[in-house]
């Protein structure tokens, strides 16, 4: 029988595939928000209600704070950064949307194969959680590498982070409240600082395309005649 957690995992996977093909920034941010809500509420769904009774306050607090931060606060922050930096609303792909979709699909197949190889279902709460987590981490890395804008790198990082959290929830890892909130605080602060950085990069470079961010480097090894270009100003 289909349980709520299985439906949630399926939604998560669909969100991964949709992210690979998302061409509008706002749509991509909403997809990340959906993933955030699912990851946030997952501890409650995976709870063993039959034998465990009602979960304690710790689970409720973590679920609430997690879904509020990942599902609402971070997407709002990103949307604000997009507006503030006047980024164009399209995602410019380096790897085309079609190929990205196929790559994510292949990663999903690979994720399920690895999950089966590791006999992961014996030790986890949901059979689907770990393969979906692998796929999501892969999707995050893809978004970081294969899209041009600075903000999509942040988006990719959030997807990667969602995948890792999903893995943690899937293997029923319990850190305790302090660590959960600490991790969340770190992610939140990171996105906050990156948002400010996008704003400043936009003001300084007149663009947020990451291919402008390539002035530093060891150019002297390739072009010995222009070797002091990058150190003078």
């Amino acid at each position, binding site marked *: 029988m289909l349980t709520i957690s299985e439906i949630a995992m399926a939604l998560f996977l669909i969100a991964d595939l949709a992210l690979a093909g998302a061409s509008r920034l706002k749509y991509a941010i909403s997809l990340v928000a959906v993933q955030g809500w699912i990851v946030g509420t997952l501890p409650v769904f995976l709870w063993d209600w039959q034998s465990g009774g009602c979960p304690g306050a710790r689970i409720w607090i973590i679920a609430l704070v997690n879904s509020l931060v990942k599902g609402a606060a971070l997407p709002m922050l990103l949307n604000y950064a997009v507006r503030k930096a006047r980024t164009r609303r399209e995602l410019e792909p380096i790897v085309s949307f079609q190929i990205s979709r196929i790559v994510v699909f292949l990663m999903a197949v690979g994720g399920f194969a690895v999950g089966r190889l590791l006999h992961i279902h014996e030790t986890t709460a949901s059979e689907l959680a770990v393969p979906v987590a692998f796929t999501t981490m892969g999707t995050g890395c893809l978004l970081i590498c294969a899209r041009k804008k600075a903000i999509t790198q942040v988006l990719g990082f959030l997807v990667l982070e969602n995948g890792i959290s999903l893995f943690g929830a899937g293997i029923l890892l319990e850190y305790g409240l302090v660590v959960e909130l600490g991790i969340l605080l770190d992610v939140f602060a990171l996105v906050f600082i990156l948002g400010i950085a996008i704003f400043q990069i936009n003001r300084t470079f007149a663009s947020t395309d990451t291919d402008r961010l390539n002035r530093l480097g060891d150019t002297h090894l390739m072009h010995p005649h222009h*070797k002091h270009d990058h150190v003078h100003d």
Partner: protein
Amino acid sequence: METALKQLLVILTPALFAANLAQSFFYLPEAARREGGGHMPHPLYYALITLFFGAMMFAILAPSLPLMWVAVELTTLVSAPLIACRRDRGSLEAMWKYLLICSIGIAFALFGTMLVLHAQSTGSARWYMAGFAFVLAGYGTKMGLAPFHTWLPDAHSEAPAPVSALLSGALLNCSFFAIVRFREMMPEAAAPFCDNAMLSLGILSVAVGAVFMVRQTDFKRLLAYSSVEHMGIIAVLYSLCGTLDDDRIVAAALLLHIAAHSLTKTLLFQTAGNLLLAFGTRAVSVVQGLGVSMKGQAVLWLSGIVLICAMPPSALFLSELGLVASAPVWVSAIVLALLFIVFAAMMKVGLSMTMGRPIASPEPLPKRLAIVPAALLALLVAAGIAGCAFVLPGGGV
């Protein structure tokens, strides 16, 4: 090893922080005056650098592995704005790369932490190995091990001098300590895999450092690649600790190397910062003939280069001698050959900058900028001579 390293870092990190805080008081007003507006407000700078120190101490003293992860990520977050202190194109780009590359690295470290915690409940060596691989890649990014080091040269060269010194001297050690904590909890079955991984990344880092130091035209990037190289040596030394039967010499060499590298690199980065202020450029080809134009800085710079190349009386000489004497022959041979390249590359830059005729005339520096580096140099030379006098005649190595 874990306890000894923790004790060392608990003493070393505050010492480095104090030295760089003192240098900040002299350096920052001078830099703001010469580099023009756009600097971040100075109270914010001091607040962030103090938070940075706090986050590093938190990382060293964190009671559990996940909490240590939180602390290490925190060090990235509070140090990133410091790199972009000047708020110009180069420093913004360096900060962006630092934040993004380190955060992705650290995200993998979190995944590795989860795998290791899961391995503790299942007891399977395969899970431990997978976990360690991710942890090594993750914290290795932060430690600057090749091939995950790409953020390091940009961040170290763009940051203000005291921040570069703290990044190189203190932060890299903290990340190394994170790897050590994981390595110490690996079961016997996973140990050879972990040591081999550390050894290969270590040798690769020394090689990458050496290659990029040859014909380097930017003296702060040169120091950054030297950090990559020394982190490689530290990784090699640590991998030997696990494989040798009698690891006392290697363990002592490891601790000595960490302490000596941190202090020497602080001296060098602070001097590099002074040169940058005086000449307004990081190009080796412009900063020439220091021996004529700025005698004091020339002494600091050349002695620093000699010390970091592990020439006696540097304490690094003793630790690298320990490595060569204890390691298997092929490891010693490769490391020695690479160290020779490093030596040649660094001495070429060091000599060409201090000797010969000045090309550009520097703007004179206030004397107080040399106080902290001079004190560090005196300390390093005294400690090095004492160390060599103790160890070498005894034939202990």
